[in-house]
């Protein structure tokens, strides 16, 4: 038998990036479709808090404003929990199952897998806002201009970048066993102190004095600002968020490199 002459269609020596990216996004979507619990968790809990807290604490007058404020709070809660839990636990699990090892042996560039994970998480975040928005508008009579609704979505998605950095840092730094506990341990107190669960106005002053140092505080301010109720200049909030994002992405990058060196050096 003669050896086969390997004929390759001329030109194509690697797969087009668009195809790799498209397939990676599709696979992430298939993953979410097959694990509805991931979705339910990130949608049901914020909605439950919103409904409970809004109904119990709504003032006699100005209830729609109160519901708008809470929309900012629980919107921020929903999006940041997706960034921390879905990304953090997702990445840590992928490392534990050595999904990244097989991927590394394929022609897929490493960033495509991460990027598609982040993009789908952002998509899921936007989807998780829909029930909150519907509830706020229908039950809480929240009335915002179209521009403000849009501003709220944009603030909630992009203001979450520091928390995304935190999720990646947990994902690359912690083991799959520790990641969920660690995510809760960091995320729950931080959100509470930043006023995402209970409005800062009805909590003692010292809480805010601590909370102001956390990225989630400024994230909340950005969200409340977009519904017209922030206490902090949006520019300051954005600046805080950029600094926090730089720090947390920096930490994530360190953990990432450490992980890569361990596996592939």
């Amino acid at each position, binding site marked *: 038998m*003669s050896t086969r002459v390997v004929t*390759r269609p001329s030109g194509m020596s690697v797969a087009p990036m668009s195809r*790799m990216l498209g*397939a*990676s996004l599709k696979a992430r979507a298939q993953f979410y479709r097959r694990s509805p619990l991931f979705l339910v968790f990130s949608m049901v809990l914020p909605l439950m808090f919103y409904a409970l807290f809004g109904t119990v604490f709504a003032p006699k007058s100005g209830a729609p404003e109160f519901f708008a404020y809470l929309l900012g709070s629980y919107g921020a809660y929903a999006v940041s929990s997706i960034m921390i839990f879905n990304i953090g636990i997702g990445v840590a699990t992928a490392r534990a*199952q050595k999904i990244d090892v097989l991927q590394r042996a*394929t*022609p897929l560039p490493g960033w495509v897998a991460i990027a598609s994970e982040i993009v789908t998480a952002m998509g899921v975040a936007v989807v998780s806002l829909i029930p909150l928005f519907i509830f706020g508008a229908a039950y809480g009579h929240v009335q915002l201009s179209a521009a403000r609704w849009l501003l709220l979505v944009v603030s909630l998605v992009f203001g979450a970048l520091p928390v995304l950095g935190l999720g990646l840092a947990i994902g690359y730094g912690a083991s799959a066993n520790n990641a969920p506990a660690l995510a809760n341990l960091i995320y729950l107190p931080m959100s509470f102190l930043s006023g995402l669960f209970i409005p800062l106005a009805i909590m003692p002053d010292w809480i805010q004095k601590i909370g102001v140092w956390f990225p989630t505080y400024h994230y909340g301010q950005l969200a409340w600002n977009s519904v017209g109720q922030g206490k902090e200049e949006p520019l300051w909030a954005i600046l805080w968020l950029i600094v926090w994002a730089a720090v947390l992405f920096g930490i994530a990058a360190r953990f990432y490199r450490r992980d890569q060196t361990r596996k592939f050096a």
Partner: protein
Amino acid sequence: MTVAELRGVTKRFGPVEALKGIDLDIPEGELLALLGPNGAGKTTAIGMMLGLRRPSSGTVKLFGLDPGDRRARSRCGVMLQESGVNQTLSVSELVNLFRAYYPNPMSADRAIALAGLEPEAKKPVAKLSGGQKQRLYYALAVAGDPEVIFLDEPTVGMDVESRRTFLESIKNFAGNGRTIVLTTHYLDEADELARRIVVVDRGLVVADGTPDFIKSKVAGRRVTFDSDRALTEADFEGLPRKRLEISGQRAKILTDQPEEILRALFQRGLAIKNLSVVGADLEEAFLALTAHDKAKAGESGAAEPDSSALEEVNR
């Protein structure tokens, strides 16, 4: 065209010297088995060829390129010893995902058929059995219609029957002039599939040749007996043995010519009791080649040092 080329490759993991200087050329169309016991350095060697590991010294080329180059990787399919996929996705979803990584993939149906996974195509990975998972990894390895596939201990976890059909499938795939690089610690598996066997032991290539050549170097029979006095190596001087272990009055010999040995021993007037001559199993035959049971031989005071067993092979 050379698929993979290793030149003086060493690899240290802290204090462990996993590879101690490997030179290896894998030409296109080769069906090559890297044969060696656990810890020999097979996985490390394959990792080098795929750019999963960087050599401590020496050079590695894949299709003449750096193994990390995407153009080189686009021509390779891999089945790793330890790796994973997203357990929630189904077989066909994963195959389609991996197809997208390669410039000229085969159809998903064909990849799934080659792996014999048609009935499981819609199943999530988490629901597959161990052997089915191995076949899924094989489907992912061939999905890109690669020129070369690297298979690191692919039959682990398979029963005898599925192992046979699996090897058959690899042979069919290889039939079109593709290159196969397979690691195994079973001689019969290497013999069945490969046209060339490279025996690796403790980070070194100890033998390299056709399956017949390698088989001629390993011992087929094990002779054991007790004598009435302490034995020494001198008692076995000049005998056609592959490996000798002496433990007091007891001797264990691996050889292809047990009759010759016994005749000579009787002629020398050695008392022989509790004699047994049995076919050496493949693992044992392999030990004769790589002299892997050093520790055991050492503690029982075997007269034959490892190096001589290796020399014998290299001669």
